[in-house]
């Protein structure tokens, strides 16, 4: 670690921040239905998920060979390109979190890498075919696969239990749901924490600290595991609310069907050579399970906003990353400027979120469709009074649109 430059230190810190946002963005995948069906108390659910994410980070020594799976040509990639990519991915994760929309953290990272690489080396740095086979096709397939499996499975549970009292079986289904949620958490820790380890290792290699092809040093593994676990424990309650109660209403057997379908689809896809995004699998499974009950409904307005967010993930992260790469390319002052903009943007998103907070206590209280009672102002006087615009931010996707050009211009 003798030659850690300022840029390298900034990249490592940024990668850990991305890992953290990845954790709290994706808590919902494993725990949203577990919380909404009452299988686990919200705080215990996130604590369990965090612990399993941490364990997952240490489980596998097989590091992702490439962080982008061949989408971007990673040979000769420069450290600042990685930094710009992370900036794009983090900002998109935060914006979607503010809106309570589950979106794929991996796609955000891919988008960031694509944008930064194109700005840095031109379009030849990106493999368009792989974008389609690794990003677009899975995005369409994931909800269909997991949704259909969850739908059929949920129907089956109602059919098998049609002569049984719901109350008598609820406990069993809750236990099953916890087990499948645990599997999802573990798989998430192994996959996504490794991704950050891959990013940091790549940065260390490009910075000349590590020899090409090195395994991540132990401190990288420990930091990545801790960052994702901390993010998971903090809990992205806004996204948990959307997934747990905003999309549809789930009973214990549906929650169990959804979570099991998600766990199996994730494991099957990662071991049969066609990777699916955890977020998209879980969202699809929740919708499928929702439709699996007679009279069950999916709130298509929420589902549509989610789908729009999925379509925007890659281009939006790419645009921000391209802007960041352009600015960092101007020299040291550019890197400092991008870092300052990142911190300022993150802080303002966090402040905006505090105006209408969703906490462990209120996460199951009200579905997305009925707006919660005005929350008590957490920090009086800390923000300008623009209370009337809050609802607009939560209700429409138009909110984040200006963000990419802004950062690009910066």
């Amino acid at each position: 670690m003798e030659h850690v430059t300022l840029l390298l230190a900034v990249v490592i810190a940024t990668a850990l921040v991305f890992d953290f946002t990845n954790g709290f963005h994706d808590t919902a995948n494993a725990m949203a239905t577990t919380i909404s069906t009452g299988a686990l108390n919200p705080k215990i659910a996130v604590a369990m998920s965090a612990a399993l994410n941490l364990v997952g980070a240490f489980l596998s020594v097989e590091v992702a060979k490439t962080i982008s799976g061949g989408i971007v040509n990673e040979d000769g990639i420069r450290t600042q390109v990685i930094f710009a990519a992370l900036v794009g991915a983090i900002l998109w994760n935060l914006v979607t979190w503010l809106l309570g929309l589950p979106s794929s953290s991996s796609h955000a990272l891919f988008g960031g890498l694509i944008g930064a690489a194109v700005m840095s080396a031109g379009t030849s740095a990106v493999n368009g075919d792989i974008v389609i086979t690794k990003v677009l096709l899975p995005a369409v397939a994931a909800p269909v696969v997991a949704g259909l499996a969850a739908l059929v499975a949920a129907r089956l549970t109602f059919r098998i239990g049609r002569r049984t009292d719901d109350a008598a079986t609820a406990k069993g289904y809750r236990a099953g749901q916890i087990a499948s949620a645990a599997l999802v958490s573990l798989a998430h820790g192994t996959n996504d924490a490794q991704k950050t380890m891959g990013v940091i290792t790549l940065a260390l290699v490009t910075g000349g600290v590590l020899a090409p092809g090195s395994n991540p040093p132990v401190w990288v593994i420990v930091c990545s595991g801790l960052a994702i676990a901390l993010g998971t424990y903090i809990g992205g309650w806004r996204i948990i609310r959307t997934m747990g109660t905003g999309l549809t209403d789930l009973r214990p057997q549906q929650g169990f069907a959804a979570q099991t379908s998600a766990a199996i689809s994730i494991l099957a896809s990662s071991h049969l050579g066609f990777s699916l995004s955890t977020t998209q699998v879980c969202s699809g499974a929740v919708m499928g399970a929702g439709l699996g009950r007679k009279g069950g409904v999916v709130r298509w307005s929420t589902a549509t906003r989610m789908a729009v967010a999925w379509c925007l993930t890659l281009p939006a992260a790419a645009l921000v990353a391209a802007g960041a790469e352009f600015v960092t390319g101007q020299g040291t002052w550019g890197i400092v400027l991008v870092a300052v903009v990142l911190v300022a943007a993150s802080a303002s998103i966090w402040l905006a979120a505090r105006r209408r907070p969703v906490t462990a206590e209120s996460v199951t209280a009200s579905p997305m469709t009925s707006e919660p009672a005005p929350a008590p102002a957490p920090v009086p006087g800390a923000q300008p009074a623009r209370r009337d615009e809050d609802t607009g931010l939560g209700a429409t996707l138009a909110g984040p649109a200006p963000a990419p050009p802004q950062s690009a211009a910066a």
Partner: protein
Amino acid sequence: MNIDWASVGSVFGVSLLVTVGLVGLFALGTVGLAKQGSAVLTSAAYACFALCAAAVAYGIYLIVG
């Protein structure tokens, strides 16, 4: 463009079959226990759970490996 339709299809098939099979087994076990009937019914229910536990163990094996 080279889309590996075979792996798309196998992910689809495996996810659907294993999910439905596993959830079905678990539902049978849960309902069997809830009915509090004969010893046969109860042991059949536990057998269902044992199979589910084996599936979870295989899942963990897949994650670790």
